[in-house]
């Protein structure tokens, strides 16, 4: 059994609806049960935040402190390859958020990404199928950033240069001016990062097939051929050509219209676009398949199972299938799992039947109390 990454204790101060809560976790299965709106998902969000320096939902940091408060603090004591890693996240008014690893603050938050691999599976994952291309790029970027520190650096550079280039194009349009030399300066700075990001994305997607794991988990409605195909303008031309060819269009529309920031994944079910043909049930299953593929890629790439956060999984799967999913994860070098559910009896039964170490917490109005089994 591989237990090379897990969260031992978690403390939340003024985070979301928690004033001051502490939890001691099982290294295997953990469940948060309680009614909706009591704060189950907030605990998953706190764990994710400690791993990724941001909320899994695109929520601004200033919305994370408890109502009436202007700061929060999260403390997570992790065990990674046998060593303790104390991670602290702090947000104070008027200051940038800070992260500390074993008491030492990070200079750059990006240095923390990838230390504690994590996958967050939530009902809104269906956006991966039905939403715009940015949803799918975010999944790609999230996975590759956790796998390679260099990827995140290149992505940050690309996005910063792109912001400057777009602002410049806007100024050209507003002032009816043009300076080809200055635009060249930005184009050149996009070439390197774009080519790097393209190569990494392509290589990653060649290895990534969401179907086998989804089938193995007996996720319903995945018996038909499901394909993930990478689509990027860089498949046909270099970033330099791409920018050159679109320069007039960019000037006209006052933004960078082509490049790696427009990449997408074509999701095909039986050779037809999933978006148009998938049923609601298929959509949920395929989104789950994509996330489980992310889990597997991280597990392989990091040589350790990521922490898995399962928010409201019973929305997608019935109890029996949740059971077989957990059983499968157990067989394959089982990592630490946190899940949420409204039905206490259902979860207790399930965890019991797994025969793995587990803890269940009853969540009520921002308090988490362990349920002790008689």
């Amino acid at each position, binding site marked *: 059994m591989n237990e090379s990454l897990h969260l031992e204790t978690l403390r939340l101060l003024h985070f979301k609806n928690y004033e001051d809560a502490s939890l001691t976790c099982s290294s295997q299965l953990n469940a948060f049960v309680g009614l909706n709106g009591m704060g189950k998902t907030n605990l998953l969000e706190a764990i994710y935040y400690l791993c990724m320096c941001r909320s899994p939902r695109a929520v601004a940091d200033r919305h994370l402190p408890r109502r009436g408060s202007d700061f929060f603090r999260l403390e997570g004591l992790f065990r990674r390859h046998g060593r303790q890693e104390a991670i602290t996240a702090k947000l104070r008014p008027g200051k940038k958020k800070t992260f500390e690893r074993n008491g030492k603050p990070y200079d750059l938050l990006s240095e923390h990404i990838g230390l504690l691999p994590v996958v967050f599976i939530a009902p809104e994952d269906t956006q991966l199928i039905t939403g715009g291309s940015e949803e799918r790029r975010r999944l790609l970027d999230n996975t590759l950033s956790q796998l390679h520190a260099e990827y995140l650096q290149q992505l940050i*550079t690309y996005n*910063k*240069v792109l*912001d*400057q280039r777009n*602002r*410049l194009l*806007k*100024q050209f349009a507003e002032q009816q001016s043009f*300076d080809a*030399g*200055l635009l*060249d*300066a*930005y184009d*050149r*700075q996009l*070439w*390197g990062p774009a080519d790097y990001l393209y190569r990494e994305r392509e290589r990653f997607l060649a290895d990534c097939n969401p179907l086998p794991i989804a089938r193995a988990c007996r996720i319903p409605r995945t018996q038909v051929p499901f394909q993930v195909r990478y689509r990027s303008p860089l498949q046909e031309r*270099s970033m*330099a050509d791409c920018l050159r060819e679109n320069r007039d269009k960019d000037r006209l529309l006052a933004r960078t219209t082509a490049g790696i920031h427009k990449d997408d994944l074509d999701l095909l079910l039986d050779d037809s676009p999933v978006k148009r043909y998938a049923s609601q049930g298929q959509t949920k299953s395929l989104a789950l398949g994509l996330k489980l593929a992310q889990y597997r890629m991280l597990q392989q790439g990091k040589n350790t199972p990521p922490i898995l956060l399962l928010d409201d999984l019973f929305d997608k799967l019935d109890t029996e299938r949740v059971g077989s999913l957990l059983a499968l994860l157990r067989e394959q070098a089982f990592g630490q799992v946190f899940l949420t559910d409204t039905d206490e009896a259902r979860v207790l039964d399930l965890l019991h039947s797994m025969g793995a170490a587990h803890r269940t917490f009853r969540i009520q109005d921002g308090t988490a109390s362990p349920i002790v089994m008689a």
Partner: protein
Amino acid sequence: MNFSSKLIEQAVEAFAGLPGIGRKTALRLVLHLIQQEEEVSLHFAETIAGMRKGIRYCSTCFNLSDEAQCAICRDPRRDPSAVCVVESIRDVMAIEDTGQYRGVYHVLGGVISPIEGIGPEQLQIDSLVQRVREGVVQEVILAISPTIEGDTTMFYLSRQLQELPVRISTIARGVSFGGELEYADEFTLGRSIVARIPYKLQDE
């Protein structure tokens, strides 16, 4: 804060307008100026006023200067054929502290950043091109921070200068520059200016 005196209140507001000074500190400084001999406080005020009225930008390099031309540009022992291009006067001070550089400077006044509303026309770029065009300058050394904005500025400058008979060089990467230049270790900085390398553009 409740003031019994309008004069004190105004002075506190003035101090509190300075970076890093809160109202409490501002009040302490004002009370200190009151407790001192009048002559001492007046001398302080006159020094500030004199500095502000007298200071100007050097007409050649745009370094801050007491005269129309700065002490570095006027110094006959400096080599006017080498011009080190920097972002701000802080960088000039840091490089001067190394004692390794014998050429002159050109202070841009920042780096290009459309997001900050700074384009080439907000910086001393035309004046640099003009200066090179006059023919004395044989080498331009770009000592600009290795950030996205710094890279943009360096590339843009090299483009503006490419038709002119001048060598363009840069200092080795890894030396902290721009805002951090003043904290850079003198030995490393001095050495990297002496051992500068030709500025090269990445090819397509």
